[in-house]
């Protein structure tokens, strides 16, 4: 409530123009002055350490001005796991400006700059990216992004935890082009039913979409091991030892968890972002970006294939300081440069101003990242249980137009209404069949009808929450797995959905989705930074929006036909 109240009026009489400006949504956003001594500064701080590295007996004994006896556990982990001992002294000795130019210069290959990056310390990396303006940072992202083809991720959640809504919106998101779908809950006990909704809906919309349910570790891992979800993402890491410990973890516990996921064949990435440490009051006087670079190197050292970063839930902090959004772009660049899959934020309510929301998005959307949003709200923001995203369903058409205007691939496409209604209806019917077969509380025809045409959770009949929660518990108690769901779908006439789901489960055996930035094409070909490695080398190279895909993106809701200007292109 208070957040939308206008600012207190000043006693001074103001002009009409000032009154108009005062009322602009951007003035509901908060802005603060920097305070570098305390780390309330984006990336340019006199209090960040100077780069240095020294190796003795095959071991790093000095890192960014600290000797080993003064290392905190982040220093130790990074020195022992992230940095290449053989190359680091030479790498750190390379002038920063030269490295920055290599990042931008198309004639330096990705392999070359990534190899050099393996020997750099956090302070050195910061020293390099500080030299780059936002356009150069975008150049760097364009080249260092690990996967050649950019992609996108959606949130599919429900304010009422309605599994039918989650299924229908997941189906729509999948058919619109998202490669990954993520959900979470209001009432945690609903998780099994909502996770089933996400998976069934996703595989109805487009075979091969990967799904995730953000929960506490034990349940999240359990749903993954049963094959009800396909990957995991909300494994948080932090840039200072004290904040890491406050989060009840260490680099070693998180590294162990990373291996645990891989051992079950489940794709996983860590999450971090600028601003979290200063938000918790323990930035130890370092800039937000310096601390985020430590997170990125910790993730790399743990051997996790990727990282979700770009401030994420702390976006209000870098968003309020000078140069903050440049720093957010820079953290995505560093994650990419360190050869990690980068799911690049744009996933939390960021600004009251539509113009500012768009400008915050462009540094990721224009160069393309592995997942431009992590994620884009595939439901109206009021249904978004991750507390709202920078983009939601109301922005679908704007996004499609920006892709077409700029000839940039943001991972989505315009889909005709009849196709959307068809997949939403089918997803809801598939859920109806699954619930009936598993003795879960019935889904009525009225609910299927509502799911077909709905926008938000308000448009659905209320479920019997008590009965649903008992059903959710029975799913866990009975040990229902992804394979059981495949059988049910096959038996109830949803053979194509069953086949898609089985293909996703089958990938567990190959481990192909464990490689960096792996996603599935519609034909179930794993696409990772190996068989689809980014080969950008300047104009005319790398991923280009052309051919069939470009024809697809030319389509919008309303385009006047050139052949017959009295009609629109369908």
């Amino acid at each position, binding site marked *: 409530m208070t957040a939308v109240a206008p600012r207190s009026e000043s006693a001074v009489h103001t002009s009409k123009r000032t009154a108009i400006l005062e009322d602009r949504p951007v003035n509901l956003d908060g802005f603060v002055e920097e305070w570098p001594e305390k780390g309330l500064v984006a990336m340019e701080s006199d209090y960040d350490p100077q780069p240095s590295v020294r190796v003795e007996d095959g071991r790093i004994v000095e890192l960014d001005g600290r000797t080993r006896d003064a290392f905190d556990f982040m220093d130790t982990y990074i020195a022992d796991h992230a940095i290449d001992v053989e190359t680091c002294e030479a790498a750190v000795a390379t002038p920063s400006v030269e490295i920055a130019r290599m990042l931008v210069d198309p004639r330096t290959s990705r392999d070359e700059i990534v190899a050099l990056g393996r020997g750099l310390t956090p302070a050195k990396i910061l020293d390099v990216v500080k030299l780059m303006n936002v356009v150069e940072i975008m150049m760097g992202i364009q080249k260092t992004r690990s996967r050649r083809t950019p992609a996108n991720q959606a949130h599919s959640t429900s304010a009422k935890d309605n599994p039918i809504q989650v299924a229908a919106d997941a189906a729509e998101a999948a058919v619109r082009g998202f490669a990954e779908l993520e959900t979470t809950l209001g009432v945690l006990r609903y998780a099994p039913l909502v996770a089933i909704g996400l998976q069934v809906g996703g595989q109805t919309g487009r075979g091969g979409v990967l799904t995730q349910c953000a929960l506490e570790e034990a349940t999240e891992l359990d749903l993954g091991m049963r094959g009800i979800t396909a990957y995991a993402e909300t494994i948080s890491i932090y840039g200072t030892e004290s904040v890491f410990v406050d989060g009840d973890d260490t680099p070693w516990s998180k590294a162990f968890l990373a291996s645990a996921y891989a051992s079950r064949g489940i794709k996983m990435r860590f999450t971090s972002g600028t601003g979290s440490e200063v938000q918790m009051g323990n930035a130890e006087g370092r800039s937000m970006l310096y601390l985020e670079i430590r997170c990125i190197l910790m993730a790399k050292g743990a051997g996790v294939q990727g990282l979700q970063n770009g401030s994420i839930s702390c976006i209000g902090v870098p968003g309020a300081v000078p140069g903050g959004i440049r720093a957010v772009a820079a953290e995505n660049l560093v994650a990419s440069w360190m050869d990690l899959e980068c799911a690049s934020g744009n996933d939390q309510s960021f600004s009251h101003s539509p113009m500012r929301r768009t400008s915050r998005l462009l540094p990721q959307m224009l160069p393309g990242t592995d997942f431009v949003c992590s994620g884009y709200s595939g439901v109206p923001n009021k249904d978004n249980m991750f507390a709202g995203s920078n983009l939601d369903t109301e922005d679908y058409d704007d996004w499609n137009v920006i892709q077409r205007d700029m000839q940039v691939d943001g991972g989505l496409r315009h889909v005709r209404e009849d196709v959307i209604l068809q997949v939403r209806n089918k997803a809801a019917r598939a859920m109806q069949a699954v619930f*009936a*077969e598993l*003795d879960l509380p019935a889904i009525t025809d009225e609910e299927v009808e509502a799911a077909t045409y709905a926008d938000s959770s308000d448009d659905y009949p209320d479920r*019997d*929450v*008590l009965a649903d*929660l008992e059903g959710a518990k029975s799913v866990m108690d009975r040990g229902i797995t992804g394979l059981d769901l495949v059988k049910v779908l096959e038996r109830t006439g949803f053979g194509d959905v069953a086949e898609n789901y089985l293909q996703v489960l089958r990938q567990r055996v190959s481990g192909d989705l464990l490689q960096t930035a792996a996603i599935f094409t519609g034909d179930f070909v794993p696409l990772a930074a190996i068989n689809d490695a980014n080969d950008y080398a300047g104009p005319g190279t790398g991923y280009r929006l052309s051919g069939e895909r470009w024809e697809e993106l030319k389509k919008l809701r309303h385009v006047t036909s050139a052949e017959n200007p009295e009609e629109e292109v369908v």
Partner: protein
Amino acid sequence: MALVIGVDIGNSTTEACLAEVAQGAVHRLASSLTPTTGVKGTPANTAGAVTAVRRALDAAGRPSDALATVLLNEATPVISGLAMETITETIITESTMIGHNPDTPGGEGLGVGTTVALGEVGDVEAGVPVVVVVGAGADFDDVAEALNRAVDRGVDVVAAVMHGDDAVLVVNRLRRRVPVVDEVAAVDRVPLGMLAAVEVAPPGRTIRTLSDSYGLASTFDLDAEQTRQVSPVARALSGNRSAVVVRTPAGDVTDRRIPVGTLTLSGSGRSLDVGVDGGAEAIMEAIGRVAPLDDVHGEAGTHVGGMLATVRDTMTDVTGQPASEIRIRDVLAVDTLVPAAVRGGLAGEVSRENAVALAAMVRTSRSRMQAVAGAISAELGCETVIGGVEGEVAVRGALTTPGSAVPIAIIDMGGGSTDAALLDRDGSVSAVHVAGAGELVTKLIDSELGLEDREAAESVKRHPLAKVESFFHVRHEDGTVQFFTTPLPPHVFARVVTVTPEGLAAVPVRSSLEEVRRVRREAKRRVFVVNALRALAQVAPQGSLRLLGSVVLLGGSALDFEIPAMVADALAPHGVVCGIGNVHGTEGPRNAVAAGLVDAHAGTAAGPAPERLQRQVAS
């Protein structure tokens, strides 16, 4: 040797009993339990039945193609409907009184004076007794200061009525303490310039003057006729800790009965009309007079009419039988109280109004079990046989309870209906279904406690209560104290909780544990105990419970922590031995029908095979 499985499709659960049968010998292998799919006795049951069969086969490690025969009960569709109608309401006209109970009124005693707004108090002449009316938004410090100033000037401030929750704060700041009633939401509708009385009792006490007709008479100087007129006001205020009465020319408070429609009961060749607002006792008495019931209709255009029509429509949908052929065979009416906002109240006054809850039950003659049997045969690829009416088969199953003997009666307490059956010495079986069971109990608990939360009401019904007295101990409803070594979760701190297998769950009420417990036990008594007696009386020889001998309790509610004891206590005076079934000495009160089907098929159970006994009391 043949592998057979008995499947019992009940209102809420489908049970199966898998056994090998050879020359009359039965070797039971496994049993299973799953929720019933669809309305009992309709083709939608197939899915649940197949699931139950598969689970039992899985449990026994047998392949489905080894199965020779599926035995199905003749499940008569029973649908129950529930409705609750408020039949009294309290109405206040012209804001003569404010009878709500704020948590924290201020001061003590009685003040009588003329109502005046806070803003006007400065203009009042010295010596005039006034009741100050304080609107929304006033700060307690400012109010107290204004009142103190008035008193200093000689104004006789005798009481106050306030919008905010500030009474104690204001009184604490007054140099002369007076009674103050607060949290009066519509304080702006209190008439000004009228004679008013404000009374606040000491903590833990109730008001004495305004809740007494003669007290009101002396306060407002009323004559005998006027005194008679204000007696409803006095009655409405009794039991409150605080009250305000304003004397207005036409003010009144009434208590009226709401006509909510009549029930037309037909049976025994007669037809009787009974008004629902007459209460449960009148309804049940009328039902007794026309028993056995042939049908019941509700007055068109009333809520009761609507409810009975819905029950009939549902039955038409599931059986395909025209609505005109569907008969309501039983009704259970229960008196209850529901909290309702008082019409015309100024402070969101709540009064506990009388209401009647109704459960109705429908049966059809036309079962569609043949269709279920066909679908099961197709799904499992084996023979399916429909055998026996469930009441009869249940008795057979119950008879396997160690220590039981003929004659034996059963009571099966389910979700929608309560069933009773009797196996007599001559081998004849009588069975009856009556309306009202677990669902109605949940509804009564929900409305009487004002929970508006079915999950919480279910929990209250199913689990014993406790009060969390500290983070390290709870006091159970039986008075025992349990200690914990790790602190209990904060959301149950100081609350009345249910003790569930998953831990403690807070009951969202402010009532005491005793009150919650009383409501729970009363609800169970009014439904289960009443129905057990009612149903048994219908199957008992000459309607006499004394001739029953022993009664075995079956079904999910027989697993309840207190219902069996409540039923047993009610039956004890009739010399009836009552206990919880233990089918085959292993299954507890579950699986009686499924096991009974197998035994009947093998021809080993006591008494002749079911085909030969067909005496249905209520058909």
